[in-house]
């Protein structure tokens, strides 16, 4: 075989493989949406699930997922920002910084199930928080912190040195420079990353099985007292999220329409992830336009 034919053959193979990936993705999305969207209705999105009867919905699960997302981000974002700022601005190069970097890397590659088990051992049992939304949020914080740190570092390293130095040269303190000059400039990167991280939180299930629990007590959506056990706003109640629900009905669902519910819930989950993705892109572009002169 001549070199030219080989080249053409190799190119064809690579293009085919790339095409296969696109086809797999299209098939995946198409399958989930076609199978699932038919089952999605207002009733499905708002009503409570049924254990053995048909016609259950995913209302509480959807609410739990969103609530958990908000709780997690409230804890993760400040901590991650702080740690990221330390790594990018305060850490002096040396052994200690290298060690911390290694630790963050290790934490980011821990399997989510191990994070969930740690949550079970420490947050649920030792701290006595039980299976609750709050335990789940703490476990997801552990899971998401390294990502948030990396995002912050990435954002801050993109700030032009001249801008930072100009601020410092004016006699403004380092902390104030970071807060009022560097963070706003790196906002597009940080915000985009945060929204993508939020998408990850939304779909996470393994870390929640043993922290937020696999059951959802009856919720009374007219009760807005956060201390009442039936109130949806109570962060100390067990809560099954959408992703956990999908797993549960696939492995032990008793309802006769379990496959349809799983398909519908998957479609909703995928749509939410798509929305997070698009939102991240859109916000990133919008902020870019606002903060820089770039088109």
């Amino acid at each position: 075989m001549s070199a030219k034919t080989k080249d053409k053959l190799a190119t064809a193979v690579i293009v085919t493989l790339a095409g296969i990936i696109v086809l797999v993705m299209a098939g995946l999305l198409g399958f989930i949406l076609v199978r699932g969207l038919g089952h999605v209705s207002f009733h499905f999105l708002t009503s409570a699930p049924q254990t053995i009867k048909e016609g259950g919905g995913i209302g509480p699960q959807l609410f739990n997922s969103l609530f958990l997302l908000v709780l997690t981000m409230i804890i993760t974002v400040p901590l991650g920002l702080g740690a990221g700022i330390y790594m990018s601005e305060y850490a002096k190069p040396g052994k200690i910084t290298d060690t911390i970097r290694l630790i963050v890397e290790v934490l980011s590659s821990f399997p989510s199930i191990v994070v969930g088990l740690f949550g079970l051992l420490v947050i649920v049992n030792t701290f006595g928080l039980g299976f609750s939304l709050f335990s789940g949020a703490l476990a997801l914080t552990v899971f998401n912190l390294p990502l948030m740190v990396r995002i912050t570092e990435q954002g801050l390293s993109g700030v032009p040195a001249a801008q930072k130095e100009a601020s410092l040269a004016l006699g403004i303190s380092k902390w104030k420079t970071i807060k009022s000059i560097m963070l706003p400039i790196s906002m597009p990167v940080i915000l985009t990353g945060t929204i993508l991280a939020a998408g990850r939180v939304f779909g996470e299930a393994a870390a929640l099985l043993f922290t937020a629990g696999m059951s959802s007590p009856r919720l009374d959506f007219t009760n807005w007292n956060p201390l009442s056990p039936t109130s949806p706003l109570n962060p100390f109640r067990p809560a099954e999220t959408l992703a956990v629900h999908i797993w549960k009905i696939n492995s032990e669902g008793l309802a006769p329409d379990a496959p349809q519910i799983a398909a519908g819930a998957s479609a909703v989950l995928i749509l939410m992830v798509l929305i997070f993705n698009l939102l991240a892109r859109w916000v990133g572009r919008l902020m870019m336009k606002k903060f820089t002169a770039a088109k």
Partner: protein
Amino acid sequence: MTQSGRKQKVKQHVIEEWTGKIVTSFCIVLLVVIIFSMVYFVATKGLSAFFKDGLKLSEIFGTTWKPDGEPPLFGALPFIIGSFSTSLLAAVIAAPLGISAALFMVEIMPNIGRKYLQPVIELLAGIPSVVYGFVGLSVIVPLYRDIFPGQGLGIAAGATVLSIMILPTITSIATDALASLPAGLKEGSYALGATRWQTLSRTVIPTTLPALMTGIVLGMARAFGEALAVQMVIGNAPHIPHSLFESTSTLTSVITLSMGNTVMGSMQNNVLWTLAFILMMMTFVFVFVVRWLERRAQR
């Protein structure tokens, strides 16, 4: 008056400086404390099966898992084999696909690649693992059941699902590595009259090999630790399978299934923690392999 005013300013400056230092140091210390307590707690709990319940190291590497038997047997070898074979097979499937996708995006058709393939890969990365599991259960398992003998559940189904999940990891790292390759290397090869494939196979891929391997190892690490998607398609039978299409278990799947059904502190529960400990140690191994590869890549 002005004197005191200046003093105030200096003071405020110092206060600001210290707030910043303290707040950010607190965050990083918290992060370090979390990871150390995580390793400590999982390790003590994982080793308690050996120290408290008198489990022998040889027992955990036995081939029979019968926690309810008389006497109970805790051979975890089937799970360890299951975990390794699914993640290895997933990497074997995903590596050529991921590297081809990266080559396509960087070397062959950058415009089309960046416009269509890149968003597709990013979307794949964002799809939750339970959804992969669900699709695996409703598409891949029936497909394998029709084509091959057996139930369709097993290592092959698990590896197929995992390979799609780890594809984005491999692709994005390979893309970065290929894009950061100095143009001179390629141009030199082209100037010698080499075809594109000769350039790719003899110059580009060998130079970026450590980075490509990094991506593959990271993908394997992710596959190794993935729990729910695998649990849904692996079948969960606790023995070493004779074929790729026979029901088996992985470390993560057995933890997922049994952790909730055993009593905290019982021997079976402690052995499950031992499995979690093995999982954690494997994570360390993966991280160090990645570090080693990265050092190779920098040279």
